[in-house]
């Protein structure tokens, strides 16, 4: 859908996924790294060999891009960067505002030199304001954005997701801002700045929580495996499942179906079978009553595996789901049936890895992984050649450490 859009991707890890999204949508994305490779080519590594070419995070998050190296802080590098920018529609980076300016990539200068260029910059707090120069990656962004305080057990410190959700939220948001700017450019020919704040992207995870708190006086609290007063995450024989012990028209039939199943298995106490579910609302129950319900459901779940519980939940329309690990996701029947995973050959590395193929299905597979992530400088000759840089000049630049 973004065919013919040329993107120059100078991001570090906070923006890898944003560039990948544009590439998977069909844009021609050029990933520029410092000579020697991006410092965010981190472990773990393919085959457990500590080599930046084998960084699995890199391979996962930079598909559908071509790769070049350039020392943009050097004079010769700056000259080449200008030539690259002349043929670029979108510059995507994650430089802190002051660093962007120091590299000659401040918005005012870029806009004057390349009036049609779109500059999308992902920063912790946005391009301006009292915290604009504050540093932070995922942890600081989820802390300042309000999600961290509410995640985790009440008797322990707040806790984050082990993979960077701040970047997960900001990446499609940045891509959306870029496509909106492309609309404007189609209409006017003018570029603009897309100023993405990791912190502001985080606030949407509260789903209007600030408005709810302001209007109702209800301040949410960290509740771990619970939502409100009832359990949401339950132990089973081999892991954990999500199952809401909550009332409401959409949820009560699933509680009834669960109790029916337990009854068939001889696992429902008489009082549970005799419960009148029509008006069931755990918020109106005493803590001891809630505990009795939780013990009844919980002791049943503990006798079954995640898979057994999920299969039966599907058959009986019970709102229960397994807390999948990576292997279980890869084997998930629905995802397999939809061919959500695609095997991508890594010819340079002699490997073939499975990737999620797409975030959006169309009948012509318009959104898909188009090529494996590039090796360090893999497309230098091709890209610089197209700029008119001959082999001899490229060799000189390589010698000088510019590429």
């Amino acid at each position, binding site marked *: 859908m973004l065919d013919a859009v040329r993107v120059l991707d100078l991001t570090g890890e906070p923006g890898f996924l944003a560039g*990948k999204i544009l590439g998977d949508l069909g844009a021609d994305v050029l990933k520029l790294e410092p000579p020697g490779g991006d410092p965010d080519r981190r472990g*773990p*590594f393919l085959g457990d060999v500590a080599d930046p070419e084998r960084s699995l995070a890199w391979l*996962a998050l930079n*598909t559908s891009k071509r790769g070049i190296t350039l020392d943009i802080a050097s004079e010769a590098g700056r000259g080449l960067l200008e030539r690259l920018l002349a043929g670029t529609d979108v510059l995507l980076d994650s430089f802190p505002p002051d660093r962007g300016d120091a590299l000659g990539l401040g918005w005012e200068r870029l806009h004057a030199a390349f009036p049609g260029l779109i500059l999308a910059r992902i920063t912790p707090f*946005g*391009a301006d*304001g*009292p915290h604009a120069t*504050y540093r932070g990656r995922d942890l*600081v*962004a989820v802390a*300042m954005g309000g*999600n961290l305080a509410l*995640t985790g*057990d009440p008797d322990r410190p*707040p*806790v984050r997701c*082990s*993979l960077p*959700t701040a970047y997960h939220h900001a990446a*499609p*948001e*940045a891509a*959306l*801002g870029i*496509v*909106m700017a492309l*609309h404007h450019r189609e209409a*006017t020919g003018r570029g*603009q700045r*897309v100023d*993405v*704040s990791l912190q*502001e992207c*985080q*606030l*949407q995870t*509260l*789903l209007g*929580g*600030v*408005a*709810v708190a302001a209007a*109702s006086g209800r301040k949410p609290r960290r509740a*771990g495996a619970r939502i409100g007063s009832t359990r949401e995450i339950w132990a089973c024989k081999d892991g954990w499942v999500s199952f809401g012990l909550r009332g409401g028209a*959409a949820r009560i039939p699933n509680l009834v179906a669960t109790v029916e199943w337990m009854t068939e298995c001889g696992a429902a106490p008489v009082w549970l079978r005799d419960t009148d579910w029509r008006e069931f609302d755990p918020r109106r129950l005493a803590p001891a009553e809630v505990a009795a319900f939780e013990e009844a459901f919980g002791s049943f779940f503990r006798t079954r595996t995640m898979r057994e519980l999920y299969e039966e939940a599907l058959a009986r329309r019970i709102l*229960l789901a397994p*807390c*999948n690990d990576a292997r279980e996701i890869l084997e*998930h*029947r629905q995802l397999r049936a939809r061919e*959500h995973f695609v095997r991508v050959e890594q010819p340079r590395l002699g*490997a073939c*890895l*499975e990737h*999620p193929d797409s*975030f959006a*299905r169309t009948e012509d597979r318009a*959104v898909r992984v188009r090529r494996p992530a590039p090796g360090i400088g893999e497309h230098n000759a091709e890209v610089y050649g197209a700029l008119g840089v001959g082999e001899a000049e490229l060799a000189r630049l390589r010698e000088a450490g510019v590429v």
Partner: protein
Amino acid sequence: MPLFEDTKILELGAGAAGPLATRYFAEHGARVIRIESARRPDFLRALFRAPAEAGGLDASPMFVALNADKQSVRLDLSRPEARALARRLVDWADVVLENFAPGVMARWQLDWETLREARPDLVMVSGCLFGQTGPQRGYPGFGGQGSAIAGFNHLTGWPDREAHGPYGTITDSLSPRYVALAIAAALLERRRTGRGRFVDVSQIECGVYSLSEMIVRESAGAESPTRCGNRDPVAAPHGVFPVRGEDRWVAIAVFDDRQWEALVVAMGSPEWARAPHLAALAERRSHQDELEARLAAWTRGQDGPELMRRLQAAGVEAGLVQDVEDLERDPQLAHRGHFVRAPHPHLGEVPLERCGFRLSACPGEVRRPGPDLGADDEAVLGGILGLSAEEIDGLREAGVVA
């Protein structure tokens, strides 16, 4: 002129994930009309609010926050007359977004297969939990299930405790961004080719796609990520530390030895921090229990905001773990105009929110809280479809506009 001033979006669905997607366009000038019904109201309209309370279905703060700047028309789509009117609104629209269970739109003859011939230029996006195809497409889940299936729960929490996932059912806040992106990209393509298209977005697949690193690592047979508190494989210290007040914390992340040196100096170079076994990152990573305990002893009792400012000034990544009240007072968010305080007849002033990015040439704006149910019956049925006041009254009495 706002960027999407000429763009018309019809929205059918409920909850958070669908409606959040169109908010980006409302913020940038599009006219977004929700088809709703009092016969089967959006459950969001009843959240945090009993229908019997003043304002009833019009006064859920969550609904009005997530549906800012949209319009609402009532149509009971179980009625054929209502479906015929909805079909006419499709002809008016550039974009149809729906997030019902798969099959519902087909039952109403409002699905892509039915519409594509008459409206080849229509952009239509469906955004349900599991997608439109596959054996489990009818699975009736909520965001809580989506987060668990996609892997976020496995990745969030403490190794010795439940796999509980980030607060707020992450697929509900993550997938709308992808739905909005699909709409924007399809509209851009239509601008160039004149053709519309249908896009099938699965909330769970958006989550799995975001976690590509987890999938690729597993597929490579490498160490698979799992929940590990706040620690990070390439940083130490990396965690949250107590400060003055009840349940108050500051996040501190040190990714290299230069940042560690800055932190040590900021702490006044205590003897423990100068110990040789803490000087290098790899060494600090293998002494994290000690490191975290020492650092917590130093932060405890300090003023959180002041500590954050001091560490940031020293070049250390640090941030207050902000609660919802902190967010409302956050000077950075205030500077960015993130919250727009708008009056609501039943809720007083509601802090509505901007999205996560700003466009310099077409900044957009957030103006009004989400609409009362049926607030725009006349504007939509009369103004767009040309029905007379008598006809609209008749449809109301007949229970079609209900």
